[in-house]
């Protein structure tokens, strides 16, 4: 999202947090949104208020925002799906997400959605993952008894052959750095 903003893309951030909290969190990574900020749909402080009870309204708002910026390259980030899945039956969120993805594809936009591990049943995770063109898993691996390694693995990516490897990731210089991970033996 940060690099998208600097490239002049239209960036939409749909969050269940307040904008202040997101900015504080991203600042901890060294990412500073103070110069260029995304368009927010947030619980507090955003251009449009996020209401977890109103799925139709959320869908409508996203569609409207995409329509207004149809001529630009669009990036959408959403962290609302885990709580929505806790509050609604998974099949209704599945339908909602299917429709949302159809809208996003119509404008040739990229949607990055996050799901929290440990909050959902495996079958729910699998069903949600099946909707997306790509699935990237971020996890922490234990190496030996003393060290922990943040690892990124690509579960699937449309148009790419399966990537069986592991990638080490870190955040620095306003960006996420990814490098092939060589396991110490």
């Amino acid at each position, binding site marked *: 999202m940060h690099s998208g903003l600097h490239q002049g893309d239209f960036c939409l951030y749909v969050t269940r947090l307040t904008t202040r909290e997101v900015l*504080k969190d991203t600042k901890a990574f060294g990412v500073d949104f103070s110069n260029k900020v995304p368009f927010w749909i947030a619980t507090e402080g955003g251009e449009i208020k996020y209401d977890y009870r109103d799925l139709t309204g959320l869908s409508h708002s996203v569609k409207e925002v995409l329509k207004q910026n149809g001529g630009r390259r669009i990036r959408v980030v959403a962290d609302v799906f885990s*709580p929505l899945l806790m*509050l609604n039956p998974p099949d209704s969120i599945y339908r909602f997400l299917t429709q949302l993805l159809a809208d996003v594809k119509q404008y040739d936009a990229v949607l990055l959605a996050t799901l929290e*591990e*440990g909050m959902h049943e495996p079958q729910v995770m699998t069903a949600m993952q099946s909707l997306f063109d790509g699935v990237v898993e*971020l996890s*922490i691996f234990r190496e030996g008894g003393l060290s922990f390694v943040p690892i990124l693995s690509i579960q699937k990516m449309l148009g790419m052959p399966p990537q069986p490897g592991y990638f080490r990731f870190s955040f620095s210089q306003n960006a996420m750095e990814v490098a092939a991970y060589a*396991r110490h033996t």
Partner: protein
Amino acid sequence: MPWRWQRTLGTLDALTYVVFVLFAIVYGYVAYTAIAMSRVLSNRVYRNQALGLAIVALLILELALVGTFVPSNYVVTDIVNALQLLGIWFAFLIGFYYYIDASIEAARRTDPLFRDTLHWTRMRVGFWVYDIGAAIVFPIAAAFGSYDYASGGFPAILQAGVPSFLVVFSGAVVLPIAIRRSKDMTLKKQLSWFAVYMILLVLIFFGGAFLPAYPIVVELAIFLAGAYLLYRSATSLVPLRSFNEEQRRKE
């Protein structure tokens, strides 16, 4: 309690050293693990939780250090009193409060309804201001001999009563409500390890008042078992994977 060791074991003999070294290794490892976790976690709130656990482990180690090497018949001067207040009393209160505060925030973020339990986001600011203010004012006052804590009265309430109440209130009232509202099973598991550790600590510190006297070795065993609980709490902050398990899963 750790400070009983030296008195029970007598002089600073080899056994006392062995006990301290064992403590240092075990709690040092727990602190190291928590710090290592905090370095790889990308979420600020979970990082604070890991750091809080490291602080708790180091504080227990500090107690063991003081209990082992400070002679039981030390002279309490104003400066010693101030150092005790700052290095032990307020360090403990602020250390535990830091972890509890981070945990409440983590629980709030994993509550699907995003509820602000008992207006915690606003209350915590006041609590922090009081705790830090008290940790500055009281040691300075003690260093200049301005008042005698042991005599009790209103200053003692402000110094000991209020900060203790803030920690107990946040840890025993706000945190359980926030955890109940959270839907993150990983967080719940992590906090339950810590809760059992807290129960053990309460038993060790206050158990003497209502339990029959038990030998020092039992206390030591409880402390060491507690280190395992703290370690499990640190490694439960996020689901951890291992390459071996992953390999087996793929096969």
